């Protein structure tokens, strides 16, 4: 396929690997922020190709994984209300909350439907005017404009039964939070490609400036990632960290202005609850007052049991990059894609799922 296959050239990849080996002279710790990058790195065996000086950590960039149990519990409670249809991306179904999952709720009598797009959720609202249709609005800046678009469309069409459980999260603020925690001692960050398609590369500029950490925005094919690692190593070796884009076919410094304007008109910045990190101020999106009638949390009241975390699950530590799935006692033994204990094993972008599918035991 165009714009994909040409970035998978094996010969070029081999040359980029030797280029990285040539460039790297000292221990370098990189984090790939995005779950999509984690999957690509694991699938392509990139960790094993890198010189021993270059260490890759996986970050919190899996929207399903970082959704806190409290928010999953809320979604499940909403699903149990009468005359409510829950619409959600498929990955959310199996994620265990404190007491059950959306999938278990559906096996009861809750009406929960998997959608591919907020457009599909809106169509379900049009088709079922006597019921309330709630979209579980997880995701980063890539997805937030599509939620904003559906809310504006709903407003314009006068659809009165469409709601969103707003759980959108923002990447640059959580990168800052991780860097402030100081647990990782990072030298460079592989910045998310499709988040940056929307926000551009400018929002990362504080990272090299304030933390001395190199940043490269990367695409998702093997050559994209190898190029990004080569650029990061180059920056780090030269002692001049900056923000570069290795995914120029999609990402510009200023991002997608139409999408940003749309997001800005519907949402304002608010706090968000991140699994493994906790509530981080100004790291999420809330509906503006003008659109608050779409807010599922305001429109419906639910009573929630106290939040519980799964015993032994170290998803939180894995999301912060301080542990890997191989450090988890449950990994591969108790926790598998068929019987996931934590969200990182459920989501196709989760670190545990990627390590399970493509990882090797000797790591």
């Amino acid at each position, binding site marked *: 396929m165009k714009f994909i*296959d040409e970035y998978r050239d094996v010969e070029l990849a081999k040359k980029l690997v030797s280029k990285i080996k*040539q460039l790297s002279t000292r221990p370098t710790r990189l984090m790939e922020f995005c779950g999509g990058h984690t999957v690509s790195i694991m699938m392509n065996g990139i960790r094993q190709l890198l010189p021993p000086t270059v260490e890759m950590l996986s970050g919190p960039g899996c929207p399903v994984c970082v959704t806190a149990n409290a928010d999953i519990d809320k979604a499940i409670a909403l699903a149990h209300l009468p005359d409510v249809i829950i619409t959600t991306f498929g990955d959310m179904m199996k994620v265990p909350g404190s007491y059950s999952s959306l999938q278990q709720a559906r096996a009861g009598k809750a009406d929960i439907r998997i959608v591919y797009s907020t457009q599909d959720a809106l169509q379900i609202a049009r088709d079922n005017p006597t019921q309330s249709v709630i979209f579980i609005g997880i995701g980063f800046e890539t997805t937030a404009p599509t939620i904003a678009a559906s809310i504006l469309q709903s407003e314009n069409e006068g659809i009165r039964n469409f709601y969103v459980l707003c759980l959108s999260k923002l990447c640059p603020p959580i990168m800052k939070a991780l860097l402030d925690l100081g647990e990782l001692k990072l030298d460079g960050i592989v910045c998310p490609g499709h988040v940056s398609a929307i926000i551009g590369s400018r929002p990362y500029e504080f990272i090299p400036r304030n933390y001395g950490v190199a940043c490269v925005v990367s695409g998702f094919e093997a050559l994209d990632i190898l190029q990004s690692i080569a650029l990061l190593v180059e920056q780090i070796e030269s002692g001049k960290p900056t923000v570069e884009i290795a995914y120029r*076919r999609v990402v510009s410094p200023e991002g997608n202005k139409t*999408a940003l304007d*749309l997001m800005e008109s519907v949402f304002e910045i608010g706090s968000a609850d991140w699994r493994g990190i906790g509530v981080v101020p100004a790291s999420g999106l809330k509906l503006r007052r003008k659109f608050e009638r779409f807010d599922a949390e305001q429109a419906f009241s639910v009573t929630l049991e106290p939040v519980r975390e799964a015993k032994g699950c170290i998803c939180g530590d894995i999301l912060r990059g301080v542990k890997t799935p191989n450090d988890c006692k449950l990994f591969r033994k108790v926790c598998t894609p068929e019987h996931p204990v934590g969200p990182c094993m459920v989501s196709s972008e989760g670190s545990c799922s990627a390590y399970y599918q493509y990882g090797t035991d000797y790591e």
Partner: protein
Amino acid sequence: MTVAFLWAKPSSPITDERKTMCLAVPVKVVSIEGSEAEVEIGGVKRRVSIMLTPEARVGDYVLLHTGYAINVINEAEAQETLKILEEMASLDEVH
């Protein structure tokens, strides 16, 4: 060291239901009607929203994410990146 270059396999189809979140794929715009476009990838056609990319034109490749075109792919930059990759990769042959 023997490492299989797993990416040297056919591209995964657009219809893979599990891949929903920040995953996005390049698709070609076939026709446009208002804020919707018909796009094509590997023979599969689908209607998508171009609310986020009003600048998209027939023949453009756009990046499709959860039913929305989130950006128009810049062909010139795509070519440029391939050129840069070739250059980066050829440097070590000089040594």
